[in-house]
């Protein structure tokens, strides 16, 4: 960590979004995580994505559990409320938030311990419930705050800093998410913002539950030779399948793509999610094939990254429940209270 504040002074030519804000307006105070922590890059990617989408920086809710990853919501979007809840239970607090105010942009940040171990149950169920949110796991395969124990996403055979191998099978969160019916599943790498930022943007715009598993190296406990979550290992074994780029409705399409297959997916607000395939045989709309691809690549030690699966016709929990369009926390007694008159009838039913 550092006790120095990041000065508010900024570059004069900083790019401003439609709200006249720069990415600096989406930041938070300086991180207290270790220097070089991948999680900080994820936070930076979130600020960039939110700024590029021109979303009002106070209209987010940031929810997290416990762990290094869960500290990060302090360090971005400081105009928004954040909630550092209890270990492994971020999904339930996020669910409550979504139920209460469906108009907020909801970002949940969790870690591999938080989501794959203590919170695996809540993770599974929030996927099922399709809460409209962006769920990011800062996945470093280790317990940082308790100094380097293996987490459940640590690959079998990968070693800790002292060279001791992990004996147990790992949980692959993207596979779990796809299996449980998530409608937006991606994996990325904290060291590759060119891939991560567009994925975050697409995830924020996705109408339903969007999950991004971000491999985010722990420089203190899991960035050594023998780790499969180190900067070097991930760079050497990264197998990118589909890059996503979100083009806002009003934006001119100017991005140039390297040759390859491209596909446009129209989002509900009219923005276009442009998918460019880096692996030509990969179809991000075929859930079973995607699952199969991810697993078979994992067998040979490759980490598949990119937008792995998307169901463009997805819906969220509120749609499923047929909740009113107005945020529930805005309703008052005129709508909520049936009043004395109805009680007469109710009392009569008990006589």
């Amino acid at each position, binding site marked *: 960590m*550092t*006790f*120095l*504040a*990041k*000065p*508010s*002074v*900024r*570059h*004069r*030519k*900083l*790019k401003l979004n439609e709200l006249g804000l720069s990415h*600096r307006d989406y930041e938070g105070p*300086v991180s207290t995580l*270790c*220097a*070089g*922590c*991948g999680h*900080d*890059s994820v*936070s*930076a990617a979130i600020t960039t994505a939110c700024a590029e989408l021109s979303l009002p920086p106070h209209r987010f809710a940031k929810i997290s559990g416990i762990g290094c990853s869960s500290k990060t919501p302090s360090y971005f979007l400081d105009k928004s409320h954040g909630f550092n809840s209890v270990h492994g239970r971020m999904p339930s607090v996020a669910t409550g938030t979504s139920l209460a105010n469906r108009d907020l942009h909801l970002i949940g940040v969790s870690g591999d311990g938080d989501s794959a171990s203590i919170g695996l149950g809540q993770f599974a169920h929030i996927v099922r419930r399709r809460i409209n949110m962006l769920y990011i796991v800062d996945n470093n395969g280790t317990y940082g705050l308790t100094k380097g124990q293996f987490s459940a996403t640590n690959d079998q055979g990968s070693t800790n800093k002292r060279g001791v191998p992990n004996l147990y099978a790992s949980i692959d969160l993207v596979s779990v998410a796809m299996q449980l019916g998530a409608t937006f599943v991606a994996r990325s790498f*904290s*060291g590759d*913002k060119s891939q991560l930022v567009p994925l975050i943007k697409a995830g924020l715009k996705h109408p339903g539950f969007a999950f991004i598993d971000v491999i985010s*190296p722990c*420089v203190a406990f899991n*960035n050594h030779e023998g780790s499969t979550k180190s*900067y*070097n290992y991930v*760079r050497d074994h990264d197998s990118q399948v589909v890059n996503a780029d979100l083009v806002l409705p009003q934006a001119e399409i100017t991005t140039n793509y390297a040759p390859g297959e491209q596909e446009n997916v129209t989002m509900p607000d009219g923005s276009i999610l442009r998918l460019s395939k880096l692996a030509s045989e990969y179809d991000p709309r075929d859930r079973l094939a995607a699952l199969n691809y991810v697993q078979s690549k994992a067998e040979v030690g490759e980490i598949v990254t990119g937008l792995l699966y998307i169901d463009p016709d997805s819906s969220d929990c509120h749609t499923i429940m047929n909740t009113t369009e107005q945020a529930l926390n805005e309703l008052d007694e005129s709508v909520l209270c049936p009043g004395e008159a109805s009680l007469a009838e109710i009392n009569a039913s008990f006589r």
Partner: protein
Amino acid sequence: MLNWDSNVFPGILGRTCDRPCEPACRRVRAEDTPVAICRLKRVAADYKGDIQRYLPTIPSTKNGKRVALLGAGPASLAVARDLMPLGYEVHIFDRGVAGGGMMRSQIPAFRLPEKVLNEEVDLVLDMGVECHFDYEIDSMKNMLSQQFDAYFIGTGAPRGRDLDIPGRNECSEHISIGIDWLSSVAFEHVDSIKGKVIVLGGGNTAMDCCRTSRRLGAESVHVVVRSGFEVMKASDWEKEDAMAEGIPITNNRPPLEFVHENGKLKGILFQCIEQVEDENGRLKSVPTGEPDVFMEADHVLLAIGQENYCPWIERDLGIAFDKWDCPELHEETLQSTLDNVFFGGDSAFGPENIIQASALAHKAAISIDLFCRGKDVLKDRPVAGLRLSSTKMGMHEWSYDSNYDESVRHAVPQVDSGLALRDIKVEVELGFDEKLGLEEAQRCLNCDVQTVFTEQLCIECDACVDICPMDCITFTPNAEETELRASLKIPAENIEQALYVSEALKTDRVMVKDEDVCLHCGLCAERCPTNAWDMQTSVIQVPSLAVPSLPLTEEG
């Protein structure tokens, strides 16, 4: 002492400098106002305490070389300061009664108290300089005949430019040349000015004239400038100070005629112009077509420029002059075409300022020293250099104040304006006190501390990219400079400032840093997990006789 070594006149310059350093201050790349460097020099001088024991010792046994310095202004004094400690026998000649030159004659006491001036002039003269005051230098030939080993001409640009328009000669009684008038005030030949005063001109002399008039009892004072407000040569703060004293400045009014009645000045007729951009985007003056304007005046002070003027240098001595009547000099050595004659100050390249005079004097002093020792004044000059050393002390700990101070430039406290306007000797600016001075100094962006990047250590975690408050670090595929500049997080548009580009990294990308906007806050190094970034302090060595050479580690 650092202050004195290079500036020679910290107390004087800390009050009167034109501050060429401040526009260059890196702070303006981050926000609008530079660090108040000038006034900080003053604070340093104000609070210097007793410096006697730090002063150089003057050898009692001289080295046998005699040097004549013509003029006792800042340039000559600076040369004297550099040469005296080396054992030279230095003679100063000046027509004035005391040292200081224009600092004494042209800068009003309310900006520069005599005490400060005397102290800093005496610091030099007390080194044992032979002073020849009240000495009218009327012939260079005579001077040369006195057989000095070297001559330094620092007589300045003593002639105020005149204005040749109708009526000038008829009412010359009511028209004064600004610098001459200021000088008369300084030496107390003039102690009042009556009626309505118009000051013509837009430079600092004009500002001094108008503010002095205000103090000497003028009924009204008005500054009229030929050009637009923005292009006036006076420093912004001088204009502000004048206006703060209630002196109006009227722009875009070239004078046409001094209107008089039988030699009694009535006023000035002005043309009305405006500044318009031509097709090249340059401003040019165009008459507006409005009728000419007449402004009443009982006295006019001309402050429309100064000129080199050395008619006393006979043109057959081997000292060549160019077509603008300036001496032909070697730019670096300041040697004239007569090899034992050197120039400095305004005499060298025309009217500049005191700090420029000091800088030239340092150079000239080196040349004189080399010349007197029989060395080559060009080839044997010491070179500029740079020395780097890490400032990292530990986690979060740097040996310099790395954090960016968010405060805006502090205003310099001033005396009550009523008091200031009553007495010409009351210094307007009180100067920073120690606390305010230290606070202002915190605004410094530590240009001496450099970011140094070591490719082999970098793991490309992006921590530096994310933390940089100026977004000046980018990891990107390498490219030609123009393309590279455009591909940065924020394009680097100041092409005068070189980019800092690393060798290729593991991902084949390079680290590119736009040095133009770097705050030297050290956050990149702070957040770097592998020490690939380091903050290293650099000491730049500018050659000078006064400063001993440091061992150099790198060419600068």
